């Protein structure tokens, strides 16, 4: 056991002395994560899909109850985190703000809007052609969509109010419960009641029971996707690098030399495999630590993250061994290892989210440790706990065990370690 540990630790030490290897194991994934953060605007707050503090400008030319009510909706406490409303009296200036990409949308409430919806005492017919202008920013479709949805919500309440009022009065008149001369007064009373109900967003005919779960979710940061993606991609490099060291030691004669010492071949091979495992685990933990430190990334529950790292490295080590068992020269492991790293990165969702890929690619991706480990890391980053991790952990363990068995058989056939 001690020998196993010593051989493993020796390989780990060698890895830290190999500057060329460190370049690909640590620096490259770190820089690629940083680059991803930069190009997706994670560090600049210039994120196109970010949905908080959406800037919107409201031009209230109506200055009557409904226009003011709409302004109040956007300024309500409920929406304080979501929108950042500004007001203006100049429609042209507001539209210009959209055109210059300063705001996600401009809402222009025309003068007389309230009167066009609510019939007035003076008996003037409502001007039904007056509409609120929603001037949308096409380069911020998500934010503009949310602003539009808030506006739609307000208008739906307005429509409900109008429908209720008109139906009630018409029916009361038709059934003779009120006289035509009373209609105006009844309408006015109802109007007042309904307006306050509409503005306060009172309940609908269908009750919506909202239940809030106790589990807090972390706010999702796109880096929480890229950081594990890149780390897992280069984990595949590390395991093939470790495999390469087995063949390199054989070619260099240090492996047969080890067998002259009272160490059997199983111990030697076990030690080398343990070395690969240690290298992978060290790489992953350093990358996780660095991204937490430099990018303030929250990976989730620490113990669960460590457990997931260990099983992910175990699965990946299995692949490293298989490549080693199939290759003849260290150079072959190098090139096949790099190819496998790239293919797994693509199939396993390290470079682009698996959801964006065709179903067949997604299914194929399940042979990679990348896909399973990504699932686990995302679950943890969103606040999930160990209980939710069983599918990825089981899959990675099974993958590792299967590949270890196959590799052992192949190693045996190959007589890799002999005096």
């Amino acid at each position, binding site marked *: 056991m001690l020998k196993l540990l010593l051989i493993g630790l020796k390989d780990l030490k060698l890895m830290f002395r190999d500057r060329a290897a460190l370049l690909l194991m640590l620096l490259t994934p770190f820089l690629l994560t940083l680059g991803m953060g930069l190009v997706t605007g994670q560090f600049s707050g210039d994120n196109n899909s970010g949905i908080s503090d959406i800037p919107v400008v409201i031009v209230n030319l109506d200055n009557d109850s409904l226009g003011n009510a709409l302004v109040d909706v956007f300024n309500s406490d409920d929406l304080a985190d979501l929108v950042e409303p500004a007001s203006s009296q100049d429609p042209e200036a507001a539209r210009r703000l959209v055109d210059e990409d300063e705001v996600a949308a401009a809402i222009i409430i025309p003068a007389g809007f309230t009167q066009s919806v609510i019939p007035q005492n003076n008996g003037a017919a409502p001007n039904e052609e007056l509409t609120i202008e929603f001037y949308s920013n096409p380069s911020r479709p998500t934010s503009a969509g949310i602003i539009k949805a808030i506006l739609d919500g307000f208008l739906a309440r307005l429509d409900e109010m109008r429908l209720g009022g008109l139906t009630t009065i018409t029916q009361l008149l038709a059934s003779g419960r009120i006289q035509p001369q009373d209609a105006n007064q009844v309408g006015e009373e109802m109007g007042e009641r309904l307006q306050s109900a509409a503005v306060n967003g009172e309940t609908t005919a269908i009750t919506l029971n909202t239940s809030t779960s106790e*589990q807090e979710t972390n706010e999702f940061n796109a880096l929480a996707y890229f950081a594990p993606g890149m780390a897992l991609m280069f984990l595949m490099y590390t395991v093939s690098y470790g495999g390469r060291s087995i063949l390199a030691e054989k070619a260099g004669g240090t492996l047969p030399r080890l067998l002259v010492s009272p160490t059997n071949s199983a111990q030697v091979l076990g030690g080398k495999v343990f070395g690969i495992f240690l290298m992978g685990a060290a790489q992953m933990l350093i990358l996780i630590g660095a991204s937490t430190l430099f990018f303030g990334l929250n990976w989730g529950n620490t113990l669960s993250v460590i457990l997931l790292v260990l099983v992910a490295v175990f699965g990946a080590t299995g692949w490293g061994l298989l490549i080693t068992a199939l290759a003849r020269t260290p150079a072959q492991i190098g090139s096949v290892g790099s190819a496998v790293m790239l293919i797994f990165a693509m199939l396993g969702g390290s470079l682009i989210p698996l959801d964006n890929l065709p179903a067949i690619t997604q299914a194929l991706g399940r042979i990679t440790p990348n896909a399973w480990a990504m699932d686990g890391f995302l679950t943890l980053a969103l606040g999930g706990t160990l209980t939710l991790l069983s599918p990825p952990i089981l899959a990675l363990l099974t993958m590792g065990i299967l590949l270890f068995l196959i590799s052992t058989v192949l190693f045996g056939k190959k007589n890799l370690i002999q005096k």
Partner: protein
Amino acid sequence: MKKILAIAWKDAILRFSSPSEWLFFIILPIVFTFIFAGGVPTGDEDNRIRLVVVDQANTTISQEIIRELENSTSVRPDVLSLEEAEEQFDAREATAVLVIPAGLDMEAIQNGTAQLDFRQPPNNLDASIAERAVDTAIRRVSSVASAAKMALDEAKARGTFESAEDEQAYFTQALELAKSLQADAPERVTVIQGNTPDDFAYDPQANVSAGQLITWVFIPLFGISALFAYERQHGTLRRLLTTPTSKATFLLGTISGQVVMALVQMTLMVLFAVFAFKLNWGNPLAVYIILTCSALAAAAIGTAMGTFIKSEGQAMGLSIMAGMMMGMLGGCWYPLELFPSFMQTIAQLFPTYWSMQGLLDLLLRGAGVTGILPEAGVLILFAGVFFSIGVMRFRYE
């Protein structure tokens, strides 16, 4: 000239001595191009917040609610079974879940017993946006019933009905009236799309073909540095000193060989894009001007890198890292238009940006030879600067 050819030929033999080189030369680039073309963000996909809906009622009313949610500008409904929905909600894959319980119909609305369940995590902005959208959807669906109910309540406040049938008839009549009034409801909002400069021409297959082509060609050209390191480590470079070969001849031989190989590789990838995606690359002369200038710029950077780097392993690692970083930051992996504005400016520091823009000019903007000359010029400038550094610093030992 003969020497240059001999050196170039030797490099080609060395490079393809392992069959696995074909993997990187053409197989992986093609596989990557093919799969990426279906997977990169285009900037115009459905960005609405996903709302998981469980429809246990399966009535006209529940379907109307789902239809209203589909029309929402902030959420997109995804109808799942209760089991799937709960599983996704627990695994944090679904931000919010709307459950429409069995028995949601007009009668339930009329009785005031109609209820929906909305589940959300605490303090989640997405979930509160979804809740708002659900509220709007049910308001729209139930507004007719609400109006009829209101009419009935007001009527009852002014005297009782003679019989339950009378009451129901009054409700039905009000419902019909409300329906016709709703059908005639005026539009309250006019949507106008602003003139924000956004409309970038984007074609995933064109972008990915150009982007992958550049990435896969830049990495091996940066790998020229590894070639130098290899020759230096093995002492073959020193051996060259004993022959009447000048520095310039050696460098020219190495570089031209790699550039020709890169051009062959790029030609294969261009042809793949023509056959697989029916891409029109435009004027062939313009295409080769950009491809040659790109290859020269990358080869020059590889040469300059080779004069700094000591071991082959370091050179390999560094060329992969530099190639991937420049590919990503130069807009070869994701559309540049989705970058924050300051990153769009920084991108111009990389030759990959100019190669990409040159190829996109040809693929998407219909440019000809004159249209790509600015990009070609910048790439030649890159080549000149880095060749100079490389030649100045080049040592045989």
